């Protein structure tokens, strides 16, 4: 297939995805801005000064990267899981299945939609954060790379969730019972150095720990985990989830009978 015959379907899916979530911006862009403002007010301005510093940073400065990353993770995941499951539920996924689009293009289109929403929400939450803290930027390249890779990982995870989902409950179970606990236990609000050694080892199995710390390194130059180690984990997660998603799409799981 020519590059044009791949690019046109890809850009069509991306434009459709972006226009979908921007059309309902009150449901997609505004809520994270509100909830993250509350995080900054409560944990940053009210409780933060009583906590003091963490790893040499004011508490609000320390948690700001984690809060931004939390909103990126939630939104990239939510975008793909709701959009792809919605396409399955309304059966308009068939519009793509009858067309000569390779599955990797369908996957890339939906994942790009998740990345764009993750970035947009990340920018909005960063702007909110600027009202509460003086954000630093230790490394622009590392920060952007981590945001990109994290939103890819969670867009892919959202895709896998949507592929297996048979009802709307199935797309809220994973975010509620798996994603939220992992985020809260992934070092958003604390350094894992504060945990007992056993729980530090348990935390090492939490993928979000690597993303939050890598992002915090990009902004503050401070991380509980070596940045190389964090990137290796991110690459492993990305490749693994990409292979699983593509295999599922190629086998037609959840979309073909």
């Amino acid at each position: 297939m020519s590059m044009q015959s791949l690019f046109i379907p890809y850009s069509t899916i991306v434009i459709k995805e972006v226009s979908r979530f921007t059309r309902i911006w009150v449901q997609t862009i505004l809520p994270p801005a509100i909830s993250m403002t509350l995080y900054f007010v409560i944990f940053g301005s009210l409780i933060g000064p009583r906590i003091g510093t963490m790893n040499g940073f004011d508490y609000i400065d320390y948690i700001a990267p984690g809060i931004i990353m939390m909103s990126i993770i939630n939104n990239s995941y939510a975008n793909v899981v709701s959009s792809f499951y919605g396409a399955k539920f309304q059966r308009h996924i068939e519009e793509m299945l009858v067309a000569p689009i390779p599955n990797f293009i369908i996957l890339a289109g939906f994942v790009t939609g998740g990345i764009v929403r993750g970035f947009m929400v990340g920018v909005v939450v960063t702007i909110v954060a600027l009202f509460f803290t003086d954000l630093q930027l230790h490394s622009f390249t590392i920060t952007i790379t981590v945001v990109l890779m994290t939103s890819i990982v969670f867009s892919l995870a959202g895709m896998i969730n949507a592929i297996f989902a048979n009802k709307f409950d199935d797309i809220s179970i994973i975010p509620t019972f798996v994603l939220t606990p992992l985020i809260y236990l992934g070092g958003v609000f604390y350094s894992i150095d504060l945990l007992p050694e056993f729980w530090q080892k348990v935390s090492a199995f939490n993928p979000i720990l690597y993303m939050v710390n890598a992002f915090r390194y990009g902004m503050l130059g401070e991380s509980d985990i070596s940045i190389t180690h964090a990137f290796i984990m991110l690459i492993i997660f990305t490749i693994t989830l990409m292979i699983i998603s593509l295999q599922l799409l190629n086998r037609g799981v959840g979309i073909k009978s």
Partner: protein
Amino acid sequence: MPALEIKNLNKIYSNKFEALKGIDLNVHQGDFFALLGPNGAGKSTTIGIICGLVNKSSGTVKVFGHDIDTDNDTAKASIGVVPQELNFSQFETSLSIVINQGGYYGITRRTAIERAEKYLKKLGLWEKRNEVSRNLSGGMKRRLMIARALIHEPKMLILDEPTAGVDVELRRSMWDFLIELNQQGVTIVLTTHYLEEAESLCKNIAIIDQGKIVEDTSMKQLLSKLNKETFIFDLVDPITELPDLNGLNSKLIDPTTVEVEILRKDNINQVFDVFSSNNINVCSMRNKSNRLEELFLDLLNNNNKTD
């Protein structure tokens, strides 16, 4: 090269239901082909396999010579499909649904917009182009799916019950549109429950029942197999007793309605002769059911007996 060539196609669903039992089918280029069958016979499964929505269990399907296993992209590009169930986003406008479908087929946005205008106008939807699809009427939604299926100008159009739930006037206009497309060289495969539709439109026909093709022939040949027709005679004045109609199978439905079964070898004039000699005046006469419907039911009954 046939437009569609199906050989020994089988489909067993994960619940072990055998939907297709080794069907063979050929549709010639430029044909207007009817695939008929009762509910659950395997029509939608067959269409789903051709279009890439259902995984086959075994067999081969070729679209204009392109095998769907080895050359699926080319095969898909040759097909436009209008499914039985609505399958577009309820939150998008008619225009964006059609243009996006063009994008999925690799058509540039400019061309997609031009074609969308052409087909939406042709199908009477241009005024509704900026309407969110869920606000369209049932008939408009069906026409929208036809416009969407044509955006890449396929060589073969497959329509799965396209006129289900559509009023008579609209159905007729959709028939005219499909005839026009067929005259332009587009091969059309149609499934329908309206047998009158198949008889009016289609040149060739296959009947599928319980996953097997029980008839595959031309419409003309199939109709020639019809060895009897049932006619309804409406009488001017009521009668209390029906005279003997030369031994023909007949019955008085009500005082002014007579039903008569006439074999192909019989002469219909004899019925009028008997009526005239008994001073019974007929004001109108019609077929009890569509001719194809009678054949269709006979074929299905025979298939059930042989199983």
